[in-house]
């Protein structure tokens, strides 16, 4: 292929940005992802810029907004590079002092210790640029080796070589089910010459999960690059990003990124001057959890109600507008550029035998360091919660960890030595899901937690199939009665039976996994359920009274 934009151009941009940076003695990074923005980081950024300007330090010190740094609870966060000093809970009034002490010692009262496991135990591949580059500047991304993988793909690899590399990496879908990505790509590629689509699933519906939002807000070009490589590999020329309307900042940054990428010929017609074309459009979701399911998502992009349909046919054969469609999650696509850059071999050495690479988790709930983390697959829950997460605040005890979103399971405290990978989680009755990890301490009732998740499933069930529509609402009623102290042992038996029916007969993933929170809490916290029960004899007596 012939190129108008070639590697030299990319290296040129990289060198230009690096020289610009080298000229500055200090770089002040202010986190402008949604978490810190809601704590007021925009004002901090403005105050720092103003202070630098007033003191005439623009030539030696650069102030810029960057993506998510991770420890969201400490926001607004500021980082001084190249020293690597982190400041937490910075207020606009602190700007003077921070600038004042740039050449001297750090401002001790704001400083975060970076020796803690939160910083040292993580391994960042997907998040390598998060908190380092300005998400609204394509040059920053290129300087961090961005779009190099796309160039490598177009210049040196055939589509089947690209797929072979992804297969070799062992990457599995990060949206929840863990289907091998390489296999999915192969299936779509094999459907022959026809109109095909690539869809990026950014409908991050799990409450308590914000990995995809942070990636899109902090490093949007990485996802676009992954999509373009995927499109080249499977032979598609049109792509859609289906994103939740609840993420306005991510939408705004994606729009900007698509525009910049089109101007740089990394997207659009004749990418980098080659014959390969790929267009990307955004489609906004409208708050329906079930739309994370791929067939429901397709129905929604087509403008209809987001109801799933039976598979097969899988979207790879008959997807969007009846055409062959590749659907990958945001985090999956964010892994593609590094895999192409360093090779599938390199990627497959990280993680466990069955689960390769790293996984991003959104750590939230009753844990000291809430925020975004990335660890190799196979790290134990204990490491994640007690080392990286810093343990449980207020001297409370850990009770359970909830993974996999509202249809995942609760893992009890005595199982936290287990490694986190797709298989181990399934074994204890939970799922990997998209990566939400919510820590529950002893003050929460597990039955109440289970009822909360059922309430979610009741409201989010699309209503198409009976087991899910009727079953979830029956389960919710029983759980409510348990909490009110009106249930008997008999009700628990019905509850278990319902779980079994819903799990085995529902149409889509939502219904099939909806009983998980109840099953796992029944399995590990049955005593707690029993403590709410009414003795059977008394219940019988009451019923008898009712008949009379």
């Amino acid at each position, binding site marked *: 292929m012939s190129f108008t934009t070639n590697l030299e151009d990319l290296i040129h941009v990289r060198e230009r940005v690096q020289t610009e940076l080298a000229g500055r003695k200090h770089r002040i990074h202010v986190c402008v992802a949604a978490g810190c923005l809601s704590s007021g980081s925009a004002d901090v950024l403005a105050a720092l810029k103003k202070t630098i300007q007033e003191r005439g330090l623009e030539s030696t010190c650069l102030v810029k907004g960057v993506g998510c740094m991770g420890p969201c609870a400490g926001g607004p966060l500021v980082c001084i590079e190249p020293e690597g000093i982190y400041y937490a809970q910075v207020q606009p009034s602190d700007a003077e002092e921070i600038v004042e002490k740039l050449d001297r010692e750090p401002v001790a009262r704001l400083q975060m210790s970076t020796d803690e496991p939160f910083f040292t135990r993580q391994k960042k591949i997907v998040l390598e640029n998060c908190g380092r580059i300005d998400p609204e500047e394509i040059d920053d991304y290129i300087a961090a080796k961005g779009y190099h993988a796309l160039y490598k793909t177009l210049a040196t690899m055939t589509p089947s070589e690209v797929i072979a590399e992804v297969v070799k990496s062992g990457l599995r879908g990060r949206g929840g089910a863990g289907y091998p990505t390489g296999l999915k790509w192969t299936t779509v590629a094999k459907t022959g010459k026809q109109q095909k689509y690539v869809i990026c699933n950014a409908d991050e519906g799990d409450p308590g999960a914000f990995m995809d939002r942070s990636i899109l807000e902090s490093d949007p070009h990485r996802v676009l690059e992954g999509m373009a490589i995927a499109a080249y590999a499977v032979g598609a020329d049109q792509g859609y990003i289906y994103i939740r309307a609840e993420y306005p900042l991510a939408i705004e940054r994606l729009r900007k990124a698509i525009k910049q990428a089109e101007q740089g010929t990394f997207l659009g017609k004749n990418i980098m001057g080659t014959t390969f074309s790929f267009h990307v459009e955004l489609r906004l979701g409208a708050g329906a959890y079930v739309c994370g399911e791929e067939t429901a998502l397709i129905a929604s992009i087509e403008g209809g109600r987001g109801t799933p349909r039976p598979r097969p046919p899988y979207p790879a054969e008959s997807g969007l507008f009846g055409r062959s469609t590749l659907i990958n999650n945001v985090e999956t696509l964010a892994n593609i550029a590094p895999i192409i850059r360093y090779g599938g071999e390199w990627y497959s050495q990280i993680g466990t035998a069955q689960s390769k690479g790293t996984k991003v988790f959104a750590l*939230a709930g009753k844990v000291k360091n809430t925020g975004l983390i990335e660890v190799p697959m196979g790290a134990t829950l204990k490491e994640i919660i007690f080392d990286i997460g810093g343990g449980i605040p207020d001297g409370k005890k850990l009770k359970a960890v909830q993974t996999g979103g509202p249809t995942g399971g609760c893992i009890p405290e005595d199982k936290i030595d287990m490694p986190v990978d797709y298989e181990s989680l399934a074994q204890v009755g939970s799922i990997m899901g998209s990566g939400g990890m919510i820590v529950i301490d002893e003050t929460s009732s597990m039955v109440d937690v289970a009822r909360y998740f059922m309430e979610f499933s009741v409201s989010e069930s699309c209503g198409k199939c009976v087991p899910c529509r009727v079953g979830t609402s029956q389960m919710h009623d029983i759980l409510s009665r348990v909490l009110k102290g009106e249930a008997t042992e008999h009700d628990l038996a019905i509850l278990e039976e319902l779980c079994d029916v819903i799990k085995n007969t529902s149409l889509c993933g939502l219904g099939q996994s909806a009983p998980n929170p109840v099953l796992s809490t029944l399995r590990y916290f049955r005593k707690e359920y029993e403590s709410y029960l009414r003795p059977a004899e008394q219940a019988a007596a009451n019923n008898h009274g009712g008949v009379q």
Partner: protein
Amino acid sequence: MRKHGFSPHSLIEALHSVQDTFGYIDREALIFVSGSLRLPLSKVYGVATFYHYFTLKPQGKHTCVICTGTACYIKGVPALLDSLQAQYGVTLGETTADGELSVLSARCVGACGLAPVAVIDGHVAGKLTPESLLKRLEEVIHHELHHQS
């Protein structure tokens, strides 16, 4: 709608535009959308009511969206709701009688690091307690009244 070439596939985009402009989707808007995209009204109504994001009722002057995601729930959303009920007599999905405040819920606004979270008139407020939530709402409502006088 013109942007999407009046394609029936752009129904959701069209509904987003209507809600962004008017704040909610009323009967006339539904009929208008159905006519211009040449879709049956039943389908337009079906889609508009299927998705939680669309609302067919006008909202109060101020909105307070309480995040009911798991992290927020664990960290004390029930207490926030109790305090709203006590102070304003409204709960999720309701608007005060004077039309000043609507309380809505969101499944998750993705700011779980700051749980519990509410979005008050488009601004995210994190690490809330019943007291700080009521204080924020008082400020927002009174600020407006102050401006009018």
